[in-house]
């Protein structure tokens, strides 16, 4: 596990020239000991926002409660123990890296892929979604209390269909107003429909948690006005899923919807409810790009951006084209800690007799999957007994299922 450096706490640093400052201001550091802290980020960088969040988890006083609100540019955030190849259509993330003829739909540009440190499933962030984080002492933690706080914030803005469900998510009920429910009950609304009803509640906020010895972090999304609801499913549907057997945590899909509230109104309401819950009237402190200057935060960003964290943290999985009808060279790869650890290759209709199967193609054993930028280069010379056409079809399939990650040169389309 990463051990973070302590925050610099020396007053002497505040007198150093700004150009060499490597620590946050003394005022900012002092604030970390306040019993109730409220922050709002001006940055849209998901790596920075998650690193600031982690810094606050590690460095805020053990008895304090902290609120952080932030908005990210378009990005896909996977859970700590998830598989990016299973959860995400990786080929769509960098539209410049592939043939435009199948990059549907246009307009989103580059989308970041970030593995967060908390558990749970995959979510899509954009400027129409506001993220909220509450950090509190472990001994005071429950999974619902801060989701309930956000529901109160929404209801204050007139969103009376909002409630916390059994999965600790926030949903909007879709039925007719029928029941009389106590207004304080954040787990029920007058719009709830029976289980069998077709009008399923729409999920507007998902929760995830990171629990340490002394501190508990609960963060969640809030879909307010995302323009991308129709295209998000394209990003979160991986073509490789039917061919993979994977350990780790799979996402649970839910129908989603926009609340149709402005970011500003939501942010103000959450801050107000947080202040009410913890009896504090302080202003929220802005945090942003200048926090990159802090060693701990910068190291945290570097870790989140690293391919090692993004890809090598992936739980074990295997992928096989056995059920694919367009390829006729069997291939199975087992990937452990993001590294190809075993597998085999053989011609179709061999019945797995072993006679036509060979071990892992030379050069693949021990390779980091995210290092592979061209399956043609990897397999081209490794299967001399197989016709060029069949190898090409296999490579095309591999390229669709296991595309090179963002930033890697794509040499499949020449």
């Amino acid at each position, binding site marked *: 596990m990463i051990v973070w450096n302590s925050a610099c706490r020396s007053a002497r640093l505040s007198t150093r020239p700004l150009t060499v400052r490597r620590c946050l201001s003394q005022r900012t550091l002092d604030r970390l000991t306040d019993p109730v802290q409220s922050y709002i980020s001006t940055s849209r960088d998901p790596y920075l926002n998650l690193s600031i969040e982690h810094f606050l988890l590690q460095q805020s006083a053990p008895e304090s409660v902290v609120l952080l609100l932030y908005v990210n540019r378009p990005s896909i955030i996977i859970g700590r*123990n998830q598989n990016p190849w299973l959860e995400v259509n990786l080929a769509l993330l960098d539209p410049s890296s592939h043939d435009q003829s199948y990059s549907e739909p246009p307009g989103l540009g580059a989308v970041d892929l970030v593995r967060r440190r*908390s558990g749970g499933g995959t979510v899509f962030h954009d400027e129409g979604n506001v993220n909220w984080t509450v950090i509190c002492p472990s*001994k005071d933690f429950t999974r619902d209390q801060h989701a309930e706080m956000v529901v109160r914030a929404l209801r204050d803005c007139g969103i009376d269909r909002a409630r916390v469900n059994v999965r*600790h998510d926030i949903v909007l009920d879709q039925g007719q107003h029928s029941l009389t429910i106590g207004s304080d009950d954040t787990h029920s609304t007058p719009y709830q429909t029976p289980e069998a009803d077709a009008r399923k509640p729409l999920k507007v906020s998902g929760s995830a*948690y990171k*629990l*340490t*010895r002394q501190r508990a972090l609960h963060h969640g999304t809030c879909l307010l006005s995302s323009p991308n609801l129709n295209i998000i499913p394209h990003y979160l549907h991986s073509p490789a899923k039917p061919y993979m057997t994977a*350990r780790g945590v799979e996402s649970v899909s839910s129908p989603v919807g926009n609340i149709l509230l402005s970011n500003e109104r939501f942010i103000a309401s959450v801050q107000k409810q947080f202040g009410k819950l913890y009896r504090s009237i302080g202003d929220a402190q802005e945090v942003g790009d200048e926090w990159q200057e802090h060693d701990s935060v910068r190291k945290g960003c570097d870790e989140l951006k690293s391919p090692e964290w993004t890809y090598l943290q992936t739980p074990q999985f295997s992928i096989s084209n056995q059920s694919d009808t367009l390829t006729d060279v069997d291939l199975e790869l087992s990937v452990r800690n993001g590294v190809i650890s075993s597998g085999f290759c053989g011609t179709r209709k061999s019945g797995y007799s072993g006679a036509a199967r060979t071990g892992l193609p030379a050069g693949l054993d021990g390779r980091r999957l995210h290092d592979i930028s061209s399956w043609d280069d990897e397999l081209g010379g490794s299967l001399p007994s197989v016709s060029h056409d069949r190898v090409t079809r296999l490579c095309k399939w591999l390229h669709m299922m296991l595309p090179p990650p963002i930033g890697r040169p794509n040499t499949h389309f020449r």
Partner: protein
Amino acid sequence: MSAIIAQSGVAAARALQGPARSVARCSRQQYMRLRAQQQQPFRPAARSFSASGRVLEKRYTEDHEWIDTSDPESASIGISTYAAKALGDVVYVELPTTGTEVNAGDAIGAVESVKSASDIMTPVSGTILEVNSVLEDKPGTINSSPEGDGWLAKIKISAEQELDALMDAEGYRKFTEENKSSD
């Protein structure tokens, strides 16, 4: 582990007192016990063992981890039944790497349950010798047998005196009752 369990905050370190309990264990544990008895004991001579022979040298932390010290050369670590119940269904276990040197209190892995990533800390310093690969395929073993088959890792203890600060089974039982009553 303590994150999801209300803590009383009261320090509850206790030295081992009185005869340890005998608990029915599988035959491998018996073998480990006999092997330990044949080797030079590391514990103070003042401790006594049950005459019936079956003694489980389990110690607990305030963070609800346990360590089985019957063989100090290869002590098992896991999380308590109390913690496993509070966690909910475990869906994934992140285990340490063998050969890693750790200090008491270091996070050596993590457990995911109900969308929560919870750190697991090592009760003592030492070197990780082995991890329980059963948990890779069956993470739910932590729920079904948290203090038996659901062990997480085995460690070669490097600072035996750290064990003195841990609770025995009775002390841990009282600690958890204090936790419950303070909820």
